[in-house]
């Protein structure tokens, strides 16, 4: 999994590519979230448009980011979910926890 980060105004955008399956990727994701908190960019959009696969470890990774950001006064919102990526979120009902948007622009505007 690759993560590209950029900032638009006060919003930090994490563009993910590949598979979200926890493991070593979790450390890289945690690092991005920690950096966002340190730099006071606690409103984060995770762009999932280039993610091929997500399992329960990937879900755990997103939940961990969400709780850290919310406890720092921010949020983690999701953009560009494909049907395949939406499935584990729906089954676990975590789709009610994450705000989801059809584009990164809409997700950025929501803050």
């Amino acid at each position, binding site marked *: 999994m690759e993560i590209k980060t950029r900032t638009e105004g006060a919003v930090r955008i994490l563009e993910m590519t590949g*598979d979200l399956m926890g493991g070593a990727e979790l450390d890289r994701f945690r690092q991005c979230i920690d950096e966002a908190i340190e730099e006071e960019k606690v409103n984060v959009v995770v762009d999932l448009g280039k993610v091929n696969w997500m399992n*329960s470890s990937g879900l755990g990774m997103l939940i961990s980011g969400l709780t850290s950001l919310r406890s720092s006064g921010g949020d983690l919102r999701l953009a560009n979910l494909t049907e395949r990526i939406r*499935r584990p979120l729906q089954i676990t009902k975590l789709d009610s926890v994450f705000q989801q948007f059809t584009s990164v622009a809409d997700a950025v505007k929501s803050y």
Partner: protein
Amino acid sequence: MTLKTKEYKLRIPSQTDNLELIRYFVGRVAEKVGFDDEDVGKIELACDEACTNVIKHAYSDRSQHQSLDIAIKLDYQKLTLIVTDHGKGFDPQAIKIPDMKEYLAELKVGGLGIYLMKTLMDEVTYDIKPGLRNQVSMVKYFINKKDSMVVNNSKKA
């Protein structure tokens, strides 16, 4: 009349890098026997969760034999996916299925894999022989059980 059954098998090293190949194998067999895209996705995800559990937990001792066997058995009414490892095993009774209301309220991290497997498939059973052979079997019926009840009831009427 004898019932026709088919079996497909894959033996592969227990490594995260191989999960994509495992999903491909399972997904193509499920597709070939007529499951729709949604069910194929569910079967792939359930298999991924079962194999991820083996990679993470069964083979933490690297001196152990580290292969993963995936078998798909087909009969006229169902697909049975069997994931076998030779690792340390676990007590299936000790697994706590998260209460999702509580889970969502507290936003815990982890513990969702087995919940997903049970929700994605129609039946999930374990046969654990620690150090020898551990198996998780997951069944998906070709006709949803609820749909099948509707068909049976309409036949009665």
